[in-house]
């Protein structure tokens, strides 16, 4: 059944609009909640792997007696579970839901999508076991064995088709900016992933070219898969929660198309100083610096939409996570553009600085936005409210302080580490010893984030399992009392 809603700005019947919105969310409920729940499970598992890998760096004896738990396996297992388990699955959930909401039609083939979610879980589990058993491919970001990778590409392709079909059934009307980004992710990811498999594992590229194919892929997974989903979600959630149109359509246009134009070139900045023709690296550097354009456009657009509503960060969980994520996007992108410059890269490359940067992107930006999206989506699908504002607060502060400490410690330590490494007079072991306190700060930050994740998981579990909510006032779960004496206006809440 297709349920069409007229553009609300055209004075649609609010009763009709509500009904169709409810219908849409009901159609999403099965697959979307399954994707979210799976993602949260992978997030927890990935956090454990992360802790193990992090502790090993300053205390090498930790868990070192089993081949399965050695650093060379635990670290790629962490990366792949959080990217293909957590980030991809929560991203698919958000993508499906946003597409139906914005196309104003119900989700098609929910059963197929549910099956895809289970198969996806199976594939990620198989890939993770393979990595831990020592059968990872050894190529960063695509350590899953080829059959697993092909299965994931196929499954994602199917999700993309469903999303596309959903879109095709929409009644005529304006296409909102979030949808452009969703299409970006839908089209780019399967292409990237398949190409990477063909070029790197199936022999298309060898030698030095393999390296450039690798970083073309690894960088684009972030920029052309996670970033569009994240930015698209921010574009939806900020105006949705504060109830105000996005500042400028023209800035949206500029931001999207310049991302599409420049991002794809940026990957070779990972190979600055490597055995690649100079022009290839220079192009990567220019592509990276040009990213100032889309990022500035998006940042201004979001900021000017938010202006005057920042007080709502005190109350709305969704908004707090999403705005934190949006600001981190600006920060990580600016940092990334500068980091690509040869002079900076000569210091930062091959140090913990890069690790901090990667987490600023995937965690402080993408994951925080996705947390916000989950806080918004699930109550609408289940009809339940979040059971505890305190747990949400623990989640937010655990994650926010955790990532801030993580980034601060490794950025600072990594920079000094890079300068020391460029000084031939300093013995390598001295540098290793110098980084140890910073590695401890990283493990401590990991504990904070993991505490946040556990709080999040408990909340999601309670919501989905329908455990009896502790006694609480009706209405949305807010983090604080809204400004002034005004009565809580639920509409402003989530």
């Amino acid at each position, binding site marked *: 059944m297709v349920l069409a809603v007229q553009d*609300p*700005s055209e004075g649609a019947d*609010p*009763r009709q*609009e*509500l*009904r169709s*919105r*409810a219908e849409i*969310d009901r159609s999403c409920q099965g697959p979307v909640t399954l994707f979210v729940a799976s993602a949260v499970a992978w997030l927890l598992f990935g956090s454990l792997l992360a802790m193990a890998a992090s502790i090993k760096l300053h205390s090498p004896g930790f868990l070192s007696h089993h081949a399965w738990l050695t650093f060379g396996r635990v670290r790629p297992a962490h990366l792949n579970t959080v990217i293909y388990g957590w980030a991809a699955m929560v991203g698919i959930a958000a993508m499906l839901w946003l597409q139906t*909401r*914005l196309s*104003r039609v119900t989700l098609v083939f929910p059963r197929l999508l549910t099956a895809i979610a289970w198969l996806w879980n199976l594939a990620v589990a198989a890939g993770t076991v393979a990595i831990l058993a020592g059968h990872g491919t050894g190529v960063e970001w695509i350590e899953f064995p080829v059959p697993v990778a092909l299965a994931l590409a196929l499954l994602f392709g199917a999700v993309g088709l469903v999303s596309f079909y959903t879109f095709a059934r929409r009644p005529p009307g304006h296409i*909102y*900016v979030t949808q452009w980004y969703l299409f970006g992710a839908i089209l780019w990811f399967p292409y990237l992933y398949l190409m990477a498999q063909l070029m790197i594992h199936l022999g298309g590229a060898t030698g030095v070219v393999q390296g450039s194919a690798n970083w073309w892929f690894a960088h684009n997974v972030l920029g052309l898969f996670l970033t569009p989903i994240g930015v698209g979600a921010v574009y*939806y959630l900020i*105006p*949705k929660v*504060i*109830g*105000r*149109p*996005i*500042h*400028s*359509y*023209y*800035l949206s246009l*500029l931001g999207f198309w310049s991302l599409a134009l420049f991002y794809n070139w940026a990957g070779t900045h990972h190979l600055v100083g490597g*055995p*690649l*023709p*100079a*022009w290839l*690296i*220079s*192009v990567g*550097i*220019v592509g990276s*610096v*040009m990213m*100032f*354009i889309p990022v*500035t*456009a998006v940042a*201004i657009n979001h900021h000017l*939409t938010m202006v005057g509503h920042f007080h709502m960060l005190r109350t709305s969980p969704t908004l707090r996570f999403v705005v934190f994520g949006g600001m981190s996007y600006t920060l990580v992108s600016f940092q990334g553009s500068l980091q690509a410059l*040869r002079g900076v890269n000569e210091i930062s490359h091959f140090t913990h600085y890069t690790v901090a940067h990667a987490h600023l992107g995937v965690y402080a930006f993408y994951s925080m936005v996705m947390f916000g999206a989950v806080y918004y989506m699930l*109550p*609408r699908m*289940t*009809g339940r*409210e979040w059971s505890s504002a305190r747990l949400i607060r623990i989640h937010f502060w655990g994650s926010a302080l955790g990532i801030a400490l993580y980034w601060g410690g490794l950025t600072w330590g990594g920079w000094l580490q890079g300068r020391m490494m460029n000084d031939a007079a300093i013995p390598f072991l001295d540098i290793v010893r110098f980084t140890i306190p910073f590695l401890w700060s990283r493990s401590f930050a990991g504990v904070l984030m993991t505490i946040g994740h556990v709080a999040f998981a408990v909340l999601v579990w309670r919501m989905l399992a329908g455990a009896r909510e502790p006694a609480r006032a*009706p209405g*949305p779960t807010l983090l604080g009392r809204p400004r002034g004496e005004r009565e809580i*206006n*639920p*509409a*402003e*809440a989530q």
Partner: protein
Amino acid sequence: MTTNPHQTFIRDTADTDVEAIHEPIAREKAEPRDGYEPISIWLVFLFLALAGWGGWYLGAFSGDWNAMVYDERAQAGAAPAAEAKASDMLTLGRRAYVRCQACHQPTGQGLPGTYPPLAGSPYATGPAERAAAIVLNGLQGPLVIDGETFDNIMPAHRDLMTDLEIAAVLTYVRQSWGNDAPAVAPEDVARVRAATAERGAAWTAGELDQFALPEPEPAE
């Protein structure tokens, strides 16, 4: 902007269908819309400036878009090319020096009583032809360097190294560890190689002290 029409609507209606709608859905605001504020002109200038920088950078650091150029500072044109070549001789020489370093040591200091130093040695920094001759044919017998006497054998490298390699390694030796003598060109080595082609034995210090290239053979 702060009142939500749906809410009043929810409370005022007896429509059971609508009451079944989840509260969170009922209270949310309308789907997002676009505003149409213009883009600031300053932003446009900023972006144009960035694009200009990008063009300059690509022009300056792309090695003529040549797949064989790995050094982004390499430029077309004669002067920088010669400079690049000189630094290449040093790099090549540093690599070729692995042939010498077992005896003369990575530091060029040699080993006391066994292998003479190259750092500060008049043979290393003296006439290029003479140095090339030593590497080509080797050296044996007593030899005094800096007051210390050596009496050992250095093997010939004539069949082990090309002219370019010998020129490069000597350039490296002559410009490292405080040595500061002019570079050696492959052509110099080639001349010595040809002139000494008939000689099988290693040089002695006495011979070297009177070293002079034989006049070009009357082959022409």
